[in-house]
């Protein structure tokens, strides 16, 4: 039947006497999900809800301050659950998906274990060392799991640990420095995942790369924008240099792979940064008019440029 997209069907429907029944058939054949997709969807939905609710039930049970239990009993209970889940992952003959989801459940239970530990020994539940321990002990599972949602959890934990460390321990770090560290760290993770995926060593889903890239660009934009209004410092200048290098690399990679996501978010980040710079220069009415014109002009130009690029890539494929 040929390769046809939803948009094409809409366009044909708009300019023809195509009957609703026939359009419905075409949509169901080419666009809508078929039986195998529904099977997969139902399985993932049920397993995620099942493991998700069960694990949250356990988490809530431990958050509930039950005083009667001896502290060792509490620890043994959670450790037993973690071991049980891990044992299931290793020895069960069930499908890959359920084992991966269970491993993610066990990963969250590990956090509960450290929380209970903190409760028993009064280390506090939001201390950075709690997240640090959680992160460190997950590393091995994350590496062997091959399960992107668990990778995302791990990346979130690393970021949380760092931010809490900055807030609770290092009073002499400037905001610029923590932004620089966060940026560098996430760029390294993003670069690593991209390289592994390019060399076919690891299957990294696009959504994970995009979420990570969005976070990296947000950190850079936030760091530079807040830095503009303050006195220049060494970390701020390093952040600018690194951002320029990374943005350049990001655009280059995107042009090689013929994708417009990176150039789009990078351009928007640059537009926001330049806007902040303009506001720093002056805040009179003329400047606001200039900014308004600048934003419209630059976004229009970026969109036009990216559309032209996509068109030329499409033509290449055809030619």
């Amino acid at each position, binding site marked *: 039947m*040929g*390769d*046809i997209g939803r*948009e*094409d*069907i*809409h*366009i*044909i*429907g*708009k*300019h*023809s*006497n*195509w009957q*609703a*029944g026939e*359009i419905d058939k075409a*949509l169901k054949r080419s*666009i*809508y*999900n078929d*039986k195998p997709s*529904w*099977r997969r*969807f*139902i*399985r993932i939905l*049920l*397993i995620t809800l*099942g493991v998700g*609710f*069960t*694990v*949250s*039930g356990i*988490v*809530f*049970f431990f*958050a509930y301050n039950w005083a009667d239990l001896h502290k060792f009993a509490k620890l043994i209970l959670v450790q037993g659950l973690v071991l049980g889940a891990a044992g299931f992952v290793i020895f069960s003959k069930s499908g890959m998906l359920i084992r991966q989801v269970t491993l993610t459940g066990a990963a969250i239970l590990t956090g509960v274990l450290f929380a209970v530990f903190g409760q028993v020994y009064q280390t506090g539940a939001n201390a950075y060392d709690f997240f640090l321990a959680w992160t460190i002990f997950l590393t091995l599972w994350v590496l062997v799991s091959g399960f992107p949602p668990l990778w995302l959890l791990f990346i979130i934990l690393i970021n949380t640990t760092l931010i809490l460390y900055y807030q609770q321990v290092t009073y002499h770090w400037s905001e610029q420095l923590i932004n620089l560290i966060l940026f560098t760290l996430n760029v390294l993770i993003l670069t690593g995942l991209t390289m592994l995926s390019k060399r076919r060593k690891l299957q990294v889903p696009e959504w994970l790369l995009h979420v990570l890239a969005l976070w990296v660009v947000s950190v850079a934009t936030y760091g530079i924008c807040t830095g503009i209004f303050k006195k220049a410092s060494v970390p701020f200048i390093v952040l600018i240099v690194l951002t320029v290098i990374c943005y350049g690399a990001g655009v280059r990679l995107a042009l090689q792979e013929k994708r*417009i996501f990176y150039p*789009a*978010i990078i351009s*928007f980040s640059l537009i926001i940064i330049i*806007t902040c710079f303009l506001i720093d220069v002056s805040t009179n*009415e*003329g400047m*606001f*008019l200039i*900014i308004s014109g600048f*934003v419209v002009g630059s*976004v229009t130009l970026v*969109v*036009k440029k*990216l*559309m032209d690029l996509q*068109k030329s890539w*499409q033509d290449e*494929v*055809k030619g």
Partner: protein
Amino acid sequence: MKSKDNTNRFLESLKEQDPSFEWKEEAIAAEYRTNEGGGTSLILSVLSILGGILATLAFLGFVFMAGLYKSVAGQIALSMTLIGFGIWLSRQYGRVFLDTLSVTGFISGLMLLVMALVSYELDLSSSFVSVITIVVSLIAIALAQTRVLTFICVLIINGCMLQLILSNFAYGILDIFTAGMAVLVTLVYVNEAKIIAAGPLPASLYSPVSIGLALSFVSCFAFFGLQRYTGISLSNGWIPSIVIIVAILYVVYRVLYTLHATKFRYAILVAVALVLLPAAFAPAITGSLLVLLLGFYVNHKTTFVLGILSFIYFVIQYYYDLELTLLVKSIVMFASGILFLLLYFFTNKKLAADEKI
């Protein structure tokens, strides 16, 4: 969007199947010329909208710092010019890269208009201003017919409807409005083919209106899920929730019908109804599930992701707000978890057995 050649091949094959099939070659070719190279790319639309909002803020900053708001007549004239410019630009060129400019013109014009109407000199009621805004947005949709502007207008209309309901303290109507939105969203998503076939206007407005309605629906049930934080106390939401559950059952029925799954059809419907019944007082949860289901049914990624995110958020919110001791919460969640796992193992066997046949 795929390539024009693919579409031409597809058109020929349609003609072979049905000799009475006719199409306007020139109009279709023109459509591809204006949109080629990412007319439907989500990231480009998002970029245009964000750029438009940023530019609008800067422009309004300019208007207020320059004191242009001091004459109401002047402000209304300026706002009309901007709105007209935004619509004209969309209508005349319909090019994706001009969206930022037309969005900036339209939104800043509309905001200036609203501010002039509620200003001290005119002092119109907010309800009246909402109605005017709705009318202007409807006119914009009918005239402009571009994706981004239509999408924004759908959201503006929904916002005005909510404003009308909430500023008049007609909280009971929010139940009915949310229920109505559930029905509307479901009908629009399920009847894609019929709407496309209905004519050129519905066909070109379908995509932006459908995703705009889904987002509006989420904003409606969010009021029920976030009552504690908005300070607006509504009913417990059983009216929208029941309607939503019925809509979910209808979609499940459609899915089973489409997939020719005749075995256990009614048993499945009863099971779904039973699982959903405990959520009868949580329209935010059932509503998210409806969006998720519709998104997956028509395989529309944005709707599907919207459903997943809102589902995760409102489930967490629901349990967080629940006024039960942690022990009871934990038992409720543990029991539901086990129920879903049992369903998984039960259906897994069935689904696997199905696959072998």
